[in-house]
């Protein structure tokens, strides 16, 4: 079996690793700026599919299907993002007699519409957050939206129907702020998804974002997994995920998992999927949406259940029956935490910080898993999501997982660009985080309280060490120029430099 991976970055590398371990051949696709990307080099074959803009490469169904056919691939893994939740893509694969490693096109289409998905949940007997039942297209005027908003109740969220990952989403405290929020949400949604339709949803007070991973096979078996806790979000985007959640009792776990499985069965769901819930302080939970694909944060589930979700996706797509013991899937061994390492500068409001990676030394050792997508010499492009790696740690206790994460973050070296590592180092030390006392609004509030203080503030002595190192670096460079009778080190490095210079 040969699998084409219709994606890039860490998830493409993750899928290639799974294929290698299963003895399957792989095909990568790439855009102009990804010629030297890691997924291109690690695949057995690679096909260029267009310019750097995603719309002209990773989103081009025709080019990707053609790449699969010219290379003789049997199946396509969409990863997450890009075409992963595009029903037309799943159909195009079917029509081209390619196995789409994911749910049926119908399931994608149905659950892809936030409003339709809500209806499915309601029919399956699962509570949903109060909100509009139908999408509000561009022609729906401000007055009507205001009227609907009052019935939903404030505070509320304006969300893009086609949305995801926090894009095209706005919080509205009262009627006054509604109109402008709707405008920005529509414009963001139009540019990001080419669809300006939105909907309104009541915003619960201090809710937690809890989600249930599912696997379904083609023989009617659906297995829900122990929950993931994804309440650490910045502007509605997950930045840290854990499993299990300290806010979920085993009794609540059983109920949420049962609800998730009920929704999945209602749509004959197959392959990997995730159902997101909001859980309020009382422990009541509300269906939020279903992601009909692999999640970025799937590794935390793998770390506590020790199952390989990507390998299961492939086996399910091959028609194999799920032979997982549901009890194992629902029980967590220890605790796992994932930090999404982004090429962003946390000191400039998490501004993307693309550019050449000059040095890279991921953390490793006991209890550490690094799912990386970049390498030295690669330039993080401006065209896509800027996540460069997922750092995951496991601990026998949540505390040990946190201590390990702090150790691993300190060990992790990325040179040449700014990353969110300093932010995570800081977060891991916040009392509320360490105590697990947080909700989806926690991080944004915390960031506001910091009033933009730098995450890279150094102690006076560390600042002095950094200054001394910079001066020594300059001194050593200068003494090489001057040809100072160099110390062993200097001449050694001169040699290395000359050697470098020799290499084109």
């Amino acid at each position, binding site marked *: 079996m040969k699998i084409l991976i219709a994606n890039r970055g860490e998830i493409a590398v993750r899928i290639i690793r799974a294929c290698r371990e299963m003895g399957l051949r792989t095909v990568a696709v790439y855009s102009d700026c990804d010629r030297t990307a890691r997924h291109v080099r690690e695949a057995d074959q690679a096909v260029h599919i267009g310019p750097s803009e995603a719309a002209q490469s990773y989103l081009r169904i025709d080019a990707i299907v053609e790449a699969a056919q010219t290379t003789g691939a049997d199946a396509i893994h969409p990863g997450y993002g890009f075409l992963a939740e595009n029903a037309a893509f799943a159909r195009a694969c079917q029509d081209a007699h390619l196995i789409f490693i994911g749910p049926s096109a119908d399931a994608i289409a149905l659950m892809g519409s936030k409003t339709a998905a809500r209806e499915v949940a309601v029919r399956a007997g699962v509570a949903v957050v109060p909100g509009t039942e139908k999408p509000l297209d561009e022609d729906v005027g401000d007055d009507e939206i205001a009227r609907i908003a009052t019935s939903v109740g404030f505070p509320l969220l304006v969300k893009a129907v086609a949305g995801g990952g926090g*894009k095209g989403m706005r919080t509205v405290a009262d009627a006054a702020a509604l109109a402008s929020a709707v405008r920005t949400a529509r414009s*963001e949604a139009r*540019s*990001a998804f080419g669809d300006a339709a939105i909907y309104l949803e009541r915003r619960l007070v201090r809710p937690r974002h809890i989600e249930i991973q599912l696997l379904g096979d083609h023989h009617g078996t659906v297995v829900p997994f122990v929950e993931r806790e994804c309440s650490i979000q910045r502007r509605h985007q997950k930045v840290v995920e854990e499993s299990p959640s300290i806010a979920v009792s085993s009794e609540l776990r059983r109920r949420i998992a049962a609800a998730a499985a009920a929704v999945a069965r209602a749509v004959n769901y197959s392959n990997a999927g995730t159902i997101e819930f909001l859980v309020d302080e009382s422990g009541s939970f509300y269906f939020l949406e279903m992601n009909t694909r692999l999640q970025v944060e799937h590794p935390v589930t793998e770390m506590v259940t020790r199952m390989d979700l990507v390998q299961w996706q492939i086996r399910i797509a091959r028609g194999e029956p799920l032979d997982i013991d549901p009890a194992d899937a629902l029980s967590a061994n220890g605790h796992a935490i994932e930090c999404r390492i982004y090429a962003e*500068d946390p*000191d*400039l*409001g998490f*501004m*993307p*910080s*693309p550019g050449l990676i*000059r*040095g890279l030394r991921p953390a490793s050792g006991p209890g550490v898993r690094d799912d990386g997508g970049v390498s030295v010499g690669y330039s993080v492009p*401006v*065209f*896509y*999501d*800027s996540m460069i790696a997922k750092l995951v740690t496991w601990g026998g206790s949540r505390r040990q997982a946190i201590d390990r994460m702090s150790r691993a*973050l*300190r060990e992790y*070296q990325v*040179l*040449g*660009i*700014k*990353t969110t*590592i*300093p932010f995570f*180092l800081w977060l891991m030390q916040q009392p509320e985080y360490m105590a697990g006392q947080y909700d989806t609004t926690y991080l944004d509030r915390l960031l506001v309280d910091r*009033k*933009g203080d*730098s*995450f*890279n*503030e*150094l102690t006076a002595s*560390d*600042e*002095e*060490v*950094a*200054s*001394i*190192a*910079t*001066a*020594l*670096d*300059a*001194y*050593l460079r*200068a*003494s090489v120029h001057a040809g*100072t009778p160099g*110390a*062993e*080190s200097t001449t*050694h490095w001169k040699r*290395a430099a000359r050697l470098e210079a020799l290499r084109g």
Partner: protein
Amino acid sequence: MTFAVEINGRSRTISIERATADRYRVIVDGHVQLIDAKRVGSFGLSLLFAGADRSSREVQVAPAGPPGEMLVGIDGKSVTVVLNGRRTGRGAAEGSAHARGEQTVVAPMPGRVVRLLVTGGDEVIARQPIVVVEAMKMENELRSPKAGRVKEIVVKAGESVEAGRVLAVIE
């Protein structure tokens, strides 16, 4: 040899001379110490402080952005260091809290100007959002490097900008 090194707006005068093969006499703002320094890989420096404490520190010094500017990594943190006063808009944006005189707001990467949040003449506070630039599918607020007055806005909404392009001047 003497250097002026600035981190987070704080500047130090550091002079260095080689004491022995790998040991250097380093004087920071008048305070003398003996340091055993070795290069490690392309950008690493291993420092052993020969003093009583014998502390060991590894620092990564990699060029980043404009010449004279270095991205220095130490224990997971990463600071922009300006050598001998050569600084740029971006450097300024970093030094923020301490920034002085006329400063610029610069696009750190290519993108499209979505919204202007201030107009010429406005009074602004440090880190106040000035322009919204869309890049990597996200809207990013570019903030003022300092408290002051908007001297001019150099771009229009909708305009595409290159990395390094000056967007506004704050005086």
